[in-house]
């Protein structure tokens, strides 16, 4: 047997203990490779949505690389530590430290090579499938498979560098402890270290502070808090797993009446040993899971934005023509002919909007007359309104403004034309999208409207009115590419931040909707894959810890069987000690995420005015189900292994 063969056999025969984190690295390589396939796709050189996808995937690749580096770093150290007895024997037999380093280096490189090759092979095999998903999400006509050396080179380059770093670093993990220490092995460390009372209390206090701050976040503090809360919560979590939880168990154990009861004695004692032994692992798993929950949750909450889209955008197309727009007729005709060309049903209602200044606020107000407004309302299937002379009705610009304006009641005067108005009602539906309507817009009686004859202070007659062409299109999602030229001109103005030459405004909600939906779907797709890598890695830590303790557990169980424990009681003990390992880090992560989303809701309220609760519940229950399945899978394997003796 040559030296290299020894290394090879070590890896191959330890494959069961390597299995979980080999799987996690393969999956990480696979996802990385699939992203590379997208990034180097010839079609993705274009601008727009593809550009967003490429950018998102690039960031995801960087995240994956860094995460995998840390993941392997931690796994290797734990793995090598678990094998210290084996290394002790080798050194006892006369292997030099240098040879041992060489052995570990070889082993790591073998693991790296195999995972990279397997990951790329899997990624390539499934790339057709991922391209199909990508094509659907981006609504591309076709996303053909292509062959290029670039994605291969990027993936191989990235992971070769990664595993070389890990190989060198992992050599350092086998500390030059005495042979005797190594020989005593892994489970020798089952010592009772007293947990500090102060640190335990501090753990709880820090978590309480972090949660309280998260719950109390407001618009003005949210950005500062984003930097303050995570470090507090992280430190709190660390202390919770390394001290607080053990103090709690210690208190529990003092109550013999409860503790010395049936299977509890063994189950609690065993669970506390496992929790203590793996405290740092639990901490890492918790943080990783929290990040995964937050990533997917945040991206899923983007999706809820599209869910609310139709409610805030009931119109199919909007064209607003301002003073001096010579192409008004031409643009509107072309829109109509394009709609007809696509055989889309539509109703067009032009509204002549007048502008005046409110004496109460000093802001300018956009005024629509009842007859125009009602025509549009009836077209959209909403109720008409009939304000009396001297009355006005607020026009809401978003779902939230509906509620806010409902509580407002004002007496004002239109300064230029001297018309007194009392406004204490809001129209109960959003008709005009937020970016096409003044925040101060009202409907007035036709006669009051006719009495507005003075131009807005400081402007001419022409600038004091504009025409709002509202199109109602039942098949509003089909309007993609209608008014393409107008959209193009608008975009250019947005890019150049110059609206001076623009005397019209055009919005195609159907197209916007598609764009929103696709970009959020792309981000969600990218995020879910990264989160899956995170969760798989977190799961592999747990599997690995269970596996390294298996020999010891097996001996323990066979003893318990001898001492007369029934199968049912053993099952209970297995459950009671596996459950905290699976659900404690996960439960804490869930709690963390819940509070994080409470503060995130504040950001969203400010931004897009929508609720992310539904998406959150969906995402978190999805992860819960996955975790429960994983628990049953591992429990089954674990019990099989225990029985095998």
């Amino acid at each position, binding site marked *: 047997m040559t030296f290299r063969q020894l290394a090879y056999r070590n890896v191959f025969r330890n494959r069961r203990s390597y299995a979980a984190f080999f799987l996690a690295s393969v999956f990480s390589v696979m996802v990385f490779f699939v992203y590379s396939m997208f990034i180097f796709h010839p079609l993705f050189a274009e601008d727009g949505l593809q550009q967003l996808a490429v950018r998102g995937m690039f960031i995801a690749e960087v995240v994956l690389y860094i995460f995998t580096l840390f993941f392997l770093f931690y796994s290797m150290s734990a793995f090598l530590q678990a094998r210290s007895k084996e290394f002790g024997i080798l050194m006892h037999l006369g292997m030099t430290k240098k040879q041992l380093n060489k052995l570990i280096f070889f082993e790591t490189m073998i693991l790296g090579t195999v995972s990279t090759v397997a990951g790329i092979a899997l990624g390539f095999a499934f790339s057709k499938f991922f391209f199909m998903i990508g094509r659907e999400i981006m609504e591309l006509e076709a996303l053909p498979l292509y062959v290029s050396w670039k994605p291969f080179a990027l993936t191989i380059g990235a992971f070769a560098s990664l595993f070389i770093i890990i190989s060198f670093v992992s050599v350092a993990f086998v500390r030059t402890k005495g042979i005797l220490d190594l020989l005593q092995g892994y*489970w*020798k460390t*089952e*010592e*009772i270290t007293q947990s500090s009372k102060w640190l335990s209390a501090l753990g709880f206090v820090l978590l309480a502070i972090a949660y309280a701050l998260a719950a109390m976040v407001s618009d003005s503090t949210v950005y500062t808090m984003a930097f303050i809360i995570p470090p507090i919560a992280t430190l709190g979590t660390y202390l919770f797993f390394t001290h607080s939880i053990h103090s709690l168990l210690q208190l529990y154990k003092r109550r*013999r*009446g409860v503790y*010395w*009861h*049936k*299977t*509890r*004695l*063994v189950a609690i*004692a*065993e669970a*506390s*040993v496992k929790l203590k032994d793996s405290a740092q692992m639990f901490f890492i798993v918790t943080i990783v899971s929290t990040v995964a929950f937050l990533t997917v949750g945040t991206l899923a909450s983007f999706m809820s934005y599209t869910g609310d889209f139709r409610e805030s955008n009931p119109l199919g197309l909007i064209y607003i023509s301002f003073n001096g727009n010579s192409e008004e007729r031409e643009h509107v005709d072309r829109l109509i002919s394009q709609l007809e060309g696509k055989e889309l049903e539509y109703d067009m209602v032009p509204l002549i909007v007048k502008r005046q200044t409110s004496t109460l606020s000093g802001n300018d107000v956009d005024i629509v007359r009842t007859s125009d407004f009602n025509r549009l309302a009836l077209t959209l299937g909403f109720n008409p309104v009939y304000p009396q002379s001297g009355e006005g009705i607020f026009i809401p610009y978003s779902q939230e403004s509906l509620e806010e304006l409902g509580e407002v009641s004002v007496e004002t005067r239109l300064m230029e034309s001297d018309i007194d108005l009392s406004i204490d009602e809001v129209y109960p539906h959003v008709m005009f999208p937020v970016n096409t309507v003044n925040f101060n817009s009202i409907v007035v009686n036709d006669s009051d409207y006719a009495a507005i004859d003075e131009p807005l202070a400081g402007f001419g007659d022409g600038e004091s009115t504009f025409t709002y062409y509202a199109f109602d299109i039942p098949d509003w999602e089909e309007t993609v590419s209608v008014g393409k030229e107008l959209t193009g001109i608008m975009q250019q103005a947005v890019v150049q931040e110059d609206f001076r030459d623009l005397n019209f405004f055009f919005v195609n909600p159907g197209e916007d909707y598609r764009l929103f939906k696709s970009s959020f779907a792309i981000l969600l797709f990218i995020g879910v894959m990264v989160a899956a890598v995170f969760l798989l890695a977190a799961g592999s830590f747990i599997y690995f810890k269970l596996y390294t303790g298996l020999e010891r557990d097996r*001996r*323990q169980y066979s*003893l318990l*069987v*001898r*001492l*007369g*424990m*029934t*199968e*049912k*009681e053993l099952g209970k003990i297995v459950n009671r000690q596996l459950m905290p390992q699976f659900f404690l880090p996960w439960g804490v992560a869930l709690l963390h995420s819940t509070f994080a989303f409470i503060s995130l809701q504040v950001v969203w309220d400010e931004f897009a005015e929508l609720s992310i609760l539904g998406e959150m519940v969906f995402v978190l229950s999805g992860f819960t189900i996955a975790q429960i399945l994983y628990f049953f899978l591992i429990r089954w394997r674990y019990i099989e292994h225990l029985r095998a003796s």
Partner: protein
Amino acid sequence: MYEGKVTHRALNQLSFEVEKGEFLAVMGPSGSGKTTLLNLISTIDTLTAGEILIDGVDPHGLDKNELALFRRHKLGFIFQDFNLLQMLTVEENMVLPLTLDYVPTDEMARRVLELARKLGLESLLHKRPNEISGGEAQRTAIGRALIHHPSLILADEPTGNLDSKASRDVLELLKSVSEESGATIVMVTHDPIAASYCDRVLFIKDGEFFNEIYSDERRQTFYQKILNVLSLLGGNVNDLSAARLP
């Protein structure tokens, strides 16, 4: 009779009785079937033929659950490598068999204290197994085997991992337990010194009965007799301790 994976009769035509309160040693060369015998009595191995009666009950007729309860109530175990649970304290290891049976906490605490006094473990009750010596660990295991007043205590090379001083302590303890509390003990051992503490030594060879001798008053002469039988038994001479009785 017993058949393993490779069909081989580990025990054959072996029949013996143990009196209540008797301290019996089973000796024989490696591979003679001592461990199989112990496993059969412990009910963790199954018979292919024949029967074993403990307190008049054949445990091999019981189902799995009843078997567990049988072991829990009727048997006590002492192992070569102590087999204490590392995560429990000395005291908790001792009460383990009782916790499964809803014994009131006061009663458990009382019994632990009583046993600890007898075993000389009073000052160690709150220590973990890795903080105490081998002799202390084995005494803890004896405590665990006695706490539920089993009908039969099975000891598998209880002194195999102990130095001679600790071995002597443990054997004297077992002897006094058998004499004072009338506990029945079956001990498998290689060590003629350990066997010389017993009331009777049963020798088996190749799974069959070979010989049995009873202790007379003096341990020195009993030890000599045991050595004589062992040399007749042949087997691997290296198995036998060449040491003279100290």
